[in-house]
């Protein structure tokens, strides 16, 4: 089935884990298993999209009702520069993940590791920026969601605290997904280091990559909606 061998391999050499991969007993072949896993992942991503739709619908309901209030609040409480830098960082990480999958398809173990390492660095940078530059000053200033929002005597819209609620819960949930992504990518790095990924088998890497892209796509929407519009 596999068309991959290398010239310098000898017939007696033990196969690498990805070469020796055997699909689960209930699958007819590895290709079916990989496609099935990918379909499963896409279904899971569907649920993630719809989960985040809750935030987007809450956003939409109040944004449509109080457009001026929310536009002003977005520009007043959030710094577009932090958001934009984080967007670029996540886009970069998305690209490196694509390249990691490509490296697996080409049996380049070292490249997989390098690209995944960059991805994880991007993710950690994203989280650090969020915590240090966005969440911590807000906590200090009492810019907390809903009833915990500290009134400070300035003139603001009546629904700023709701805007901040949507901001907090949606970015925190997204941040949680980034954190989960960090663990998943680290796990993939361990598997890659142990030679589990190669042209014949890289299902889990591909699915983690899909997950990571989704985290990116969600941020692609969160950034302009919360920070700019």
């Amino acid at each position, binding site marked *: 089935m596999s068309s991959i061998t290398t010239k310098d391999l000898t017939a007696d050499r033990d196969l690498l884990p990805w070469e020796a991969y055997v699909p*689960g*007993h*209930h*699958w007819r072949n590895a290709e*079916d298993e990989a*496609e*099935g*896993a990918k*379909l*499963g992942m896409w*279904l*899971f991503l*569907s*649920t*993630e*999209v*719809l*989960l*985040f*739709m*809750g*935030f987007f*619908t*809450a956003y939409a*309901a*109040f944004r449509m009702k109080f457009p001026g209030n929310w536009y002003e609040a977005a520009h007043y409480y959030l710094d577009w520069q932090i958001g934009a830098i984080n967007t670029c960082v996540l886009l970069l990480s998305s690209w490196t993940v694509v390249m990691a999958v490509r490296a697996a398809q080409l049996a380049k173990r070292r490249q997989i590791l390098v690209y995944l390492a960059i991805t994880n660095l991007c993710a950690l940078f994203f989280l650090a920026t969020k915590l240090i530059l966005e969440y911590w000053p807000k906590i200090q200033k009492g810019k*907390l*969601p*809903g*009833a*915990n929002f500290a009134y400070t005597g300035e003139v603001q819209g*009546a*629904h700023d*605290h*709701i805007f901040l*609620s*949507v901001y*907090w*819960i949606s970015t925190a*949930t997204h941040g949680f997904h980034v954190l989960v992504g960090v663990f998943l990518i680290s796990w993939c790095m361990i598997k890659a280091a142990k030679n589990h990924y190669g042209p014949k088998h890289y299902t889990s890497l591909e699915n983690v990559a899909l997950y990571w892209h989704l985290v990116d796509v969600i941020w692609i929407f969160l950034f302009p909606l919360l920070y700019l519009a």
Partner: protein
Amino acid sequence: MSGHHDVSYLAPKDTLWKTIWSWVYTVDHKKIGVMYLSAILLAFFLGGVAAMAVRLELWAPTQTVLERANDGTVTPVTRGVFLDPGIKENGKEVPPNVWYNRAFTLHGAIMVFLFIIPSIPAALGNIFLPIMLGAKDVAFPRLNLFSWYVYVFGGLFAIYSILAGGVETGWTFYTPYSTTTEWGATTAMVLAAFILGFSSIFTGMNFIVTVHKLRAPGMGWFDMPLFVWAVYATAIIQVLATPVLGITLLMLVFERLFKIGIFDPALGGDAVLFQHFFWFYSHPAVYIMILPGFGIASELIAVHCRKRLFGYKAIAFSSIAIAAISFLVWGHHMFLSETAAANIVFSGLTFLVAIPTAIKVFNWLATFYKASISWNTPMLYAAFFIFCFTIGGLTGPPLATLATDIHLHDTYFVVAHFHYVMMGGTVLAFMGGLHHWWPKFTGRMYNEFWARVASVIVFIAFNITFFVQFFLGTQGMPRRYATYDEHFQLLHQISTAGALLLLVGFLIHAAVFAQSLVAGAKAPKNPWGGLSLEWETESPPVEHNFHREPVVTHGPYDYDTVVPAHVDPRDYPLPDPAEVRRVHGDHH
């Protein structure tokens, strides 16, 4: 693969410890299905206890109790039946109605989240969907086991919330009541429902991939049994709707813990927005509950009428159509709070659901024509299902019609309507399916006579209990009332009497099943003469379902073409090709 995989999946291992481990850590869809079945039957029992508490409370409109005050004066006070003054929580006496409110909330929450949603898909679906497809297992066996543990974890949260004081918000958790109530452990119950949602999502994902990727060779989409079609349609809803429930309940938890204000009018939020969020899941969830029931009804009718189902494709496509339309109609739960524009749109869309549903019922009925109907317990339940579900379906239009819904909304008419659909539909179909497949997955026959007696009792008792509630509703008795006006008493008492009879029916069923497990006769491979793949394997099935991967050569209901006129389908196929091959030592 031969050897130890050719033994029954129920066969014990060498030691007791290994047997227990083989269940705890199983990835076998049949064992997981059986574990689900045990758990949901326990939930059904708990929910039933709560239901009996509700019905008993409603025996009398109110109770007048003499109450002694601190200064010794004795005054008559109107209280509920479950009055227990003196029980204190957080230093204050629990008002009497709270007990009733907790009972109906637990009944709703347990029946919906712990029983009826996982009932058919996660239990019977898990056991039979892969076998009916000719697969060895579901696509992701470990995820399947994980989803069972998630279910148990969610169930533990629910039990914790009961022990920690219960919940009295109603299973719908409407804000701002659910965010402001001081009684009970609402947060724990909301988290329970949140966790149970994930169990449902994982099951749905698993089934979709299984149907797409693991059908036996030769099985096209239109060779699948209709139960598989129905569970597939259900899985689509589970995947697309349940995450919205997840986020809704998560936001509700945030609302309770951090007062985020999105659903709280006191903080400038929008209480009706919560209802949109909630019903975006919970209306499609109604079809998560009933679609598998349709699937079972199709199986029962075809097999026990020994006849090709009338309009196979119409039934199959109507399942998918119902799944799609289910996402369009949730607004009819808010006819009293929405604007007229939204009401009119949702009212019109709601009627659409009736069309594919009506098509199904007509097709089932047409299958009876010139059939060979065996009136055993599963078929009785199929007929009872058609009767009750049709009533449930036909009482939908008065609720979808704006003019009449204004009067009937939030009354017992709605209670009766959804019990006719959920209980008269799903539960009766579930009971039918359980009897239909019981010999297959336990390997034991049950006592047919007593099962029939119990099914007739359940049917009659169910109709006594709930038909009078239509009159209660049109006469203006609102839902969720611990006390009521005296002129409703007669109807309430009839209903309560019916509920007690219903309890008797289910207890007989329990006894029949217990007797079957202990002393039932060994079940043959194909006791009813079914043609779908599950009847080709052993009873109970072997560990990997089939001795050899089956090749599909005929449709699941091709009685007229596959079975020669003189042959009893119970003996079909004659003989099992797998057996023949095994005799010849033909391992793959």
